[in-house]
């Protein structure tokens, strides 16, 4: 009985917090299934659920195309951030060179620079390079992230130096050491960083808003905005689009949830 009470005391706040976290998602899905006349009802399940909002969304905007754009942009950004982070972390931890401490400090500092500060120069540059309305334009300015470099530098510091030395004695060059020895043994931090970078890129709003002009070239966060009109918000359609936008991330989590939690725990990213 005492143990049960203790368990309840421990679990009760967690249950409340979980409900708080899950409720907005639940409300989004429920609203997306509500017909127009029920939108503002506070019932936890619509009286007559329908998929008409989904049909409307797919008809009103090129949703599949937008989802694909978002996926391509997020996957490319995550991959680029992991690759650049990996190379930078290897160089910072394995090579002794003058100014390596300063380089690392500057990378850490760049993390503190707000997006609003680099937004205009990046926009001007992207325009001059002809990257408006392109996925490359969305990816390249975010291809290197200070967070990725710092996380991987940290992971690489605790990587056994002897393994790298052994590979070098075996005749492997730096690239080969990185690809064949370091990467297979740093899967946990690489996976967690990749997932974080993917989610962060998927949720990107401002940069795509600046860079994309055409609806078929944009990403899902901008697509959602299409249902906020001067005549008022189309809540049902917006929630249907938001649900569709969340599905890939949800699917990614459902498939990989064991690995993601494991890698977050092991890599120390929480």
């Amino acid at each position, binding site marked *: 009985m005492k143990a049960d009470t203790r368990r309840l005391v421990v679990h009760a706040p967690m249950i409340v917090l979980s409900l708080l976290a899950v409720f907005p998602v639940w409300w989004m899905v429920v609203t997306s299934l509500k017909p127009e006349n029920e939108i503002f009802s506070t019932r936890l399940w619509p009286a007559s659920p329908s998929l008409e909002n989904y049909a409307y969304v797919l008809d009103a905007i090129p949703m599949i195309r937008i989802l694909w754009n978002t996926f391509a942009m997020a996957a490319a950004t995550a991959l680029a951030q992991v690759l650049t982070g990996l190379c930078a972390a290897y160089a910072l931890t394995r090579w002794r060179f003058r100014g390596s401490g300063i380089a690392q400090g500057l990378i850490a500092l760049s993390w503190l620079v707000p997006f609003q500060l680099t937004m205009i120069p990046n926009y001007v540059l992207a325009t001059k390079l002809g990257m408006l309305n392109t996925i490359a334009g969305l990816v390249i300015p975010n291809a290197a992230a200070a967070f990725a470099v710092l996380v991987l530098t940290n992971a690489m510091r605790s990587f*056994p130096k*002897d*393994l790298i*030395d*052994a*590979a*070098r*004695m*075996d*005749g*492997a*060059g730096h690239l*080969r050491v990185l690809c064949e*020895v370091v990467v*297979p*043994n740093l899967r946990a931090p690489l996976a967690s960083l990749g997932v974080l970078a993917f989610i962060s890129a998927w949720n990107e709003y401002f940069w795509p808003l600046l860079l994309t002009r055409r609806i078929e070239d944009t990403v899902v966060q901008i697509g959602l905005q299409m249902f906020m009109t001067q005549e008022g918000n189309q809540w049902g359609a917006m929630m249907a689009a938001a649900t569709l936008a969340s599905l890939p991330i949800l699917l990614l989590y459902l498939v990989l949830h064991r690995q993601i939690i494991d890698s977050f725990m092991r890599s120390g990213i929480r």
Partner: protein
Amino acid sequence: MNGIDLSAIRKRFGETEVVKGLDLTIAEGEFLVILGPSGCGKSTLLRLIAGLEDVTQGRIRIGGRDVTHEEPGRRGCAMVFQNYALYPHMTVAGNMAYGLKVAGVPRRERAERVARIAGMLELGALLDRRPHELSGGQRQRVAMGRAMIRSPRVFLFDEPLSNLDAKLRAQLRLDIKRLHRDLGTTSVFVTHDQLEAMTMADRMVVMNGGRIEQAGTPQEIYRRPATRFVAGFIGAPAMNIFPALIDEAGRAMVSGGWYPCPDAVWALPPGTEVDLGVRPADVLPGAPAPGRPAFTPDVSEDVGTEVHLHARGAGLDLTLSAPAGAALPQNDFSVSFPAAAAHCFAGESGQRAALRPTQKPERTDETWTATSLSFT
């Protein structure tokens, strides 16, 4: 010609000089052990030979070829690391064959060579296992197999036995000796364990503070330590060292007018401060006598084959060792030792002093005489 020639090697890490102008030649097929305390630069020296660190100054030649600026994989060296350094994501076979894979050796030939080396090291049944499924000894044998498979010109061992228990260490010591005998490959073995060094080396190098204190065969180094440091570092229990002063006649006088070795006359000017040393096994205990300090037995340690007795007297610590079963002093005793067993090191430089030329005692292996003495 697979010898190693190191000339004027210096290595600095920032402001700290770790290797300070070192010259060393290692003959082809030689098993050289580098011995020294932690931080003496022995592992750095090995890494310089391997190419894992760049020299600040000096030249490294292997087999007559200048490899000072060569990449590690191109020097023809293979290294066995202290903590094995096996690739955790590869099987035993994968670990052993990795160097061959990098060198572009065809898969079939790799498999053949892995099988041959695995047979030599009795690893045949473990080829599909991963490192975490192996015991410490098995891991070290895999590490040795990985080094052997490329038929290197030089083997480099960086304290490879220090993570193993005593029994396994003794076994692997023998295995390495046998492999060296069979393969005849030039080997450089770094350790801080003097037993390992003494038992394995064709030749030993004792390092301290980034410099070579002495190089020679284990017997030369044990019998005639060139410096005060080597004298104290080699031998277990450690050599007894007494601070002394050279008198007008060249004899070493320990504080209080005691001449523990009156027969030895040193080629040093009178008044020179010296350290007078004697191995614990060479100490001759005797009955207390006037003019000699009395040592009081403190603690004895029985190590099976011999017994070590630690004693104190006149502000000095003394250790003597005797074969197991020999009678040890139970009460106060005095001490002397023959000139041939005495070692004298000049106080400032720590360099070994010679006996005066007129005096050439032949070093005989003194047998323990305490058994014939009785202390009551």
